């Protein structure tokens, strides 16, 4: 009891994370309390099941995929993430401001990369027709017949797969979303 002084967030850490992510120190310490309240095991790390315990996420049809993409995005093979990785992934969803210097972390590419990971079930770097089908099925549940779903998946593949390789690469993906305002769709307004 009471031996976890390391759980306190150090000033230097806040500054460093702020530099990396563009969040203000105040936002970071508030995200930290959120992190602590999600961390039911008191280990200073979050596991996928910690996130799936959020009811609003659990009812999201793609909830499990989002959690996985969240952990893949952290670039670590371990099962859990620490606070820094947590904030870094959230930073992907920071809106881009014109005044600021463009950052790698919340660029359009980073946002699309996150969405692409949702499809990339096998973590191969490309998306097959089957993977599109799985995601589609998650989104509609049992409300649409399998035949129709397959037809939709096939059509989507044909449209997106420019080189006819039978798989969607990330380039294909970003080309298919060319006309979509992904920066806007995948940005969350953080308050200070």
């Amino acid at each position, binding site marked *: 009891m009471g031996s976890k002084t390391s759980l306190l967030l150090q*000033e230097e850490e806040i500054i460093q994370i702020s530099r990396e992510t563009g969040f203000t120190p105040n936002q970071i310490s508030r995200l930290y309390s959120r992190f602590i309240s999600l961390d039911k095991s008191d280990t200073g790390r979050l596991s996928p099941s910690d996130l799936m315990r959020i009811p609003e996420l659990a009812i999201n049809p793609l909830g499990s995929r989002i959690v996985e993409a969240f952990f893949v995005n952290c670039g670590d093979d371990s099962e859990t993430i620490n606070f820094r990785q947590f904030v870094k992934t959230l930073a992907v969803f920071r809106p881009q401001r014109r005044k600021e210097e463009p950052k790698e972390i919340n660029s359009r590419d980073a946002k699309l990369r996150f*969405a692409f990971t949702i*499809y990339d079930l096998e973590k191969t770097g490309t998306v097959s027709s089957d993977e*599109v089908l799985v995601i589609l099925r998650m*989104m*509609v549940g049992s409300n649409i017949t399998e035949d129709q779903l397959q037809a939709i998946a096939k059509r989507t593949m044909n449209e997106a797969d420019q080189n006819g390789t039978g798989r969607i690469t990330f380039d294909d993906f970003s080309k*298919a979303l060319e006309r979509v305002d992904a920066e806007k769709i995948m940005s969350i307004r953080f*308050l200070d």
Partner: protein
Amino acid sequence: MVAFEQIFLTLVGLYLTPFFIIVGIVIIPACLGISFGVRKYYLRFLLKMFEFGRQKVEIACKDQGLQSNFTTSQPESSTRVSQAALIQKDSPKHLADVFKTGEGTTEEESFSEFELHHVCYLCKKGVEAIIDDDVTKCFAAEELGSWNLLTRTSMRYQYLNARLTVLWSLGFLFRYLILLPVRFVTFIVAIAYMIVSASFVGYLPQSRENRAKGGGICVANHTTPIDVIFISSDNCYAFIGQKHTGFVGFIERCMSRSGADHIWFDRSEMRDRQKVTNRLKAHAEDPNKYPMLIFPEGKLSFFKSGFKEKSPTEELVSNHICTCINNTSVMMFKKGSFEIGGVIYPVAMKYDPRFCDPFWNSSRDSFVRYLVKIMTSWDGQLKRMTVKSSYREKEQEEYSKLLKAD
């Protein structure tokens, strides 16, 4: 041999003396409703000590350049530190709503088929939920406005200052060496008394109807499993609850034996809403029975309101009875409990969080560990389940309706 006997006797004396002292000082006066007024002074002293601790923490925080999140002016405001939202959520309730209003799509054509980018909306919504959601907030242990010298706040204050450390250590010794044994003995006596008496009371003729207002329903918010103890301290109630296993289950079975018509439901029985309603109705309409005590704060009631979904009439409280909410909020009551009929007596309970953290974070601690926590706090004052898949299906259905229109 003699020496052994002597050691034995000394041990017995050592353990039994405090036991009887406790029974004599604590339990018997409490049964007779006598108060020595010690409690009032004790509370006053505690509050003074907390105030002292708060000032020390503040000074120490300033010295170390840490951010102290206490409100300086008001030691009384022992509520949440910051309740403002961290992000501005602007995702619609359903993914499909995006396309209905035409918002967010760059293309003029209205939504007609699946596009790869549709996952983006769900992504955003999911990540928004990770950053901030209303339900988890209610289930997280409340952050105090002032430190109560317990180690259970997420900030570890006791290392800040030598005097605070001493104060904390003294408090620790007092809580574990004096409060815990006293409460533990009281607890054991009470359990033993309940088990013994409950077995006999069942055989006695019931003559207490005139005391309890029969046929009514008492509705209360639910923070901890010990809520029932406070409520029942001034009246007799029939409890409605879920059947538990282990220690809680054992107590439940003992209570039923006393013949006060407590109703315990199985998980499987709960699914049969009609049956549950009928049983509760029958109980409520019988004026000879004790008033029912219901905790209708379903964890999921939040979602119900969020989705503006009419709950079916059979949708009943009992599904989520025994959900414990933290001390700051009252969740929307499920309307099922109000459909049974009978007189409703609303009850609201609030614990003073300065003296202990009553919220039972059942995802973290077992019931026994929770009891230990409560018993070692200054003033002895959740079922976690996954969300029903039907709510996810709702979202899927909305989306697929649009695909069908194709």
